[in-house]
């Protein structure tokens, strides 16, 4: 039965027109669903801009919020790089067996859905019962500093992961050569290792910057009166619902802010892409003597200590601090029982959880199906070099566009076509946001496959489909899985686009944001208290952990 199917698929795959039809439809779907709507939607509404031009106050608020976004994004990405490099260095170079533990810990903030992370940080830094108790007053109030801490925390693991990957691929021989030529370790790192892994450093910086620009839910929780781009857009939406803004004002301001966000971030990323490769640091005459002093003994020890301290106190502990009220809730019993019987507000909690994980699963499957042909196109240059390069560049666009702007644009785009359910919009939005991550990881894996192997299979008589099933798939299996993990966790964390696309469907992170708001007196919900929010976050983290653990065990099997 199965072999019959394989045979049919083989015969079909050998037919050129069919092959091109498959690739072309993948490209068309990519443009029609993933690339165009998030950008065009906003332009369709460009007419509504006029409503803001008469309102300097609204415009100034928008511009202020947007510049906050970019300043925070750039500063946070730079800090991430500075703090992440030494940790990546320790993980990739150290010899202690504790490193694999550290390596796993470094992933934790990545797994914690950002909304829960935001609440966790809020508890840790500014509410009573957290770190603030030690100081007798609120240590960090909601505001720009807390937003920076938050963004630093959730983008840090991404930066560390990317750099560790680059360091493991890097040929140590270069650094050894530099040492034998007289360079102390720090000089060797600065003049040889970092320039060689520069593309990865730029990628890490860009990812941290993009995540900072996009994050909405958690930022909203810790922002207080402070506004960055996404928070401003969310506030607009709330104000419109309250009736303090008219439809025209709301749409105009939204389009205005989104458009600027999109245009500026596309510009900045283009600049990073062009300049990043060209920038060369001067050799630094005299620096080696200074670096030698910092390379050994006490200096190295204090550097590592500071790195681990930053990781523990700013990243790891605050990320998991929400576990404390969760345990309290378990201890008190009643909240715990209520939660598991699904009574009262908990019914909506379980519903949102189901929605989130179901949505993530659908998006992951769709992402894999739609992503593989595009990944092959990029890696194998099926339609030639130029089209591959163009698609390779365009694939980044949904990552660069701040997700709340992307969501708004999607909604404006699909609004024009009646009968599309909110759930479909949700799938489209999450697909657009996560798709690039999967394609990236898959095409990189395919580029690592030696082309000789595919050619060998061809000379042995393998038809295209057999080739894919017996050579490409087994060799990229684990990259597909790790790509799927990223898609899944990003989808579960996503708030900005979700809030923008639908007001009826409530995913888990949106629910967490609403409950935290209720706690802070903004649109209160009956039955929500500190214990329920703690438990809700705790459970969300727990489930994410379990899923990640299962996926990690699956991926580990094949790692050599």
């Amino acid at each position, binding site marked *: 039965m199965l072999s019959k199917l394989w045979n049919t698929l083989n015969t079909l795959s050998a037919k050129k027109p069919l092959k091109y039809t498959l690739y072309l439809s993948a490209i068309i779907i990519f443009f029609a669903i993933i690339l165009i709507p998030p950008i065009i939607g906003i332009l369709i509404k460009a007419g509504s801009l006029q409503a803001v031009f008469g309102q300097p106050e609204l415009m100034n608020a928008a511009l202020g919020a947007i510049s906050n976004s970019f300043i925070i994004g750039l500063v946070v990405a730079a800090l991430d790089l500075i703090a992440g490099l030494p940790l990546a260095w320790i993980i990739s170079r150290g010899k202690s067996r504790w490193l694999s533990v550290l390596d796993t810990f470094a992933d934790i903030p990545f797994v914690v859905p950002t909304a829960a992370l935001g609440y966790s940080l809020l508890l840790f830094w500014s509410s009573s019962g957290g770190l603030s108790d030690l100081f007798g007053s609120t240590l960090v109030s909601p505001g720009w500093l807390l937003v920076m801490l938050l963004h630093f925390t959730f983008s840090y693991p991404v930066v560390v992961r990317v750099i560790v990957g680059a360091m493991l691929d890097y*040929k140590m*021989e*270069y650094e*050894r*050569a*530099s*040492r*034998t*030529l*007289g*360079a*102390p*370790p720090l*000089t060797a790192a600065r*003049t*040889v290792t970092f*320039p*060689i892994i*520069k593309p990865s450093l730029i990628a890490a910086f860009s990812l941290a910057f993009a995540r900072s620009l996009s994050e909405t839910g958690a930022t909203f929780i810790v922002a207080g009166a402070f506004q960055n781009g996404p928070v401003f857009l969310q506030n607009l939406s709330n104000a419109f619902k309250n009736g303090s803004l008219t439809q025209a004002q709301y749409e105009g301001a939204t389009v205005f802010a989104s458009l600027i966000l999109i245009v500026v971030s596309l510009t900045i990323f283009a600049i990073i892409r062009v300049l990043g490769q060209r920038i060369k640091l001067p*050799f630094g*005459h*005299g620096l*080696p*003597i200074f670096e*030698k002093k910092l390379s*050994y003994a006490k200096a190295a020890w204090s550097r590592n200590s500071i790195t681990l301290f930053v990781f523990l106190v700013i990243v790891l502990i605050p990320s998991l601090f929400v576990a404390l009220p969760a345990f309290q809730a378990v201890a008190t019993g009643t909240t715990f029982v209520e939660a598991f019987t699904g009574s009262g507000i908990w019914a909506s909690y379980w519903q949102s959880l189901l929605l989130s994980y179901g949505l993530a699963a659908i998006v992951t499957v769709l992402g894999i199906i739609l992503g593989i042909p595009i990944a092959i196109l990029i890696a194998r240059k099926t339609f030639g070099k130029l089209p591959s390069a163009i698609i390779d560049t365009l694939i980044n666009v949904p990552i660069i566009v701040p997700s709340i702007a992307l969501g708004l644009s999607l909604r404006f785009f699909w609004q024009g076509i009646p009968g599309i359910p909110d759930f479909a919009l949700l799938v489209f939005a999450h697909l657009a946001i996560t798709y690039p991550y999967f394609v990236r990881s898959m095409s990189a894996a395919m580029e690592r496959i030696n082309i000789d192997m595919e050619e060998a299979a061809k000379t042995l008589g393998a038809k295209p489909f057999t080739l894919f099933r017996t050579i490409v798939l087994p060799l990229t299996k684990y990259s597909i899985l790790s790509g799927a993990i990223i898609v899944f966790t990003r989808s579960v964390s996503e708030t900005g686009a979700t809030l923008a696309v639908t007001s009826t469907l409530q995913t888990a992170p949106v629910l967490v944001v609403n409950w935290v708001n209720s706690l802070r007196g903004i649109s209160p919900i009956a039955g929500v208290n500190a214990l329920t929010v703690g438990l809700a976050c705790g459970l969300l983290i727990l489930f994410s952990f379990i899923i990640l653990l299962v996926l990690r065990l699956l991926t580990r099997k094949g790692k050599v």
Partner: protein
Amino acid sequence: MPEVRIVNVTKKYGNLYALDNVSLTIQDQEYFSLLGPSGCGKTTLLRLIAGLIEPTSGEIYIGDRRVDKVPPEDRDIGFVFQTFALFPHMTAWSNVLYGPKVKNYDAKQSETIGHEVLELVKLNERLNAYPSELSGGMMQRIAVARALAAGAKTLLLDEPLGQLDAKVRNEIRYEIRRMAKDLKLTAIHVTHDQAEAMSISDRIAVMKKGKVVQIGTPQELYMHPNSLFVAHFIGESNFLEGYITEVNDAYSEIELRQGLRIKALNPRDIKKEERVVLAIRPETCEMKRGHIKAENALFGQVDKTTFEGTIVRYEIRLDNGDRFVINRPSLTEQWINVGDEVTITYPLDKAHLFPYPEAGLTEEISV
């Protein structure tokens, strides 16, 4: 211009001994090779000398200075990597100037040094090219020039010719030796190619499984191997197994398979009735067509002949069933054909008698 001393150095990876209590001294200005099959510990030893890894125990001296706790950048060594490890983000010229710059020489001084070493390696074109644009031979020269420019007094070369094709390899290996000698450097050269080691080294250390088996000049190793392993690894040997049946002052008598008896010198005083292996090099034997009665002769039949250019290689099945190989110069000799009966003789002092190895012959000579 230092002497390099290795004293009781051991390097363990987990429970595996990469180097097992190795001691040796490389003299000042000597061109020294570490030779052995892959996995014998030769590269480990070189990296220990460079400071790229640390010994589990033991001491390393460069000149009078104990260096096993000194970081590589302070050891005054130059290291040429098998893959060259030219920095891909710098031009050839910047690669050469890297050492002087890191050592904080001023720009003018650095450039003077750069020109000097490039003169030495006979390369002064394409200096603005990046490593990926250079040929293997050029990359090799830049790698050596870079090591010299950093002011190396000891030159460590890890299979420096492994990536080059045969013709270039033969040219460059003498050049490296000449440069090391001209600059009065101590050079330590790691290779698995015995011909390469033999042709350029003052002395060679043959290594096996983390230990040094024998140290000597190329002639010593070839003429007087101290073990079956060296007899097999340096050049080529025929191995005949047997028992000692008689020991007297001048020679010992050995009984080979099927009662065949021959004579051999016995400098190691192996006792009567012990199991032995006799090693005879293929190029030391005389061979005549037909069965000719002679003292200490082996008889057999030619199984196969191979014309290899300068020599002809004969594979012979001895009458007692043992296999035997003989190499003869191809131009001066009359060709002997497959199937011919032959008589083989050899000088007594060119046959080396060893006790039969405990682990078995195959294991002893396995690489």
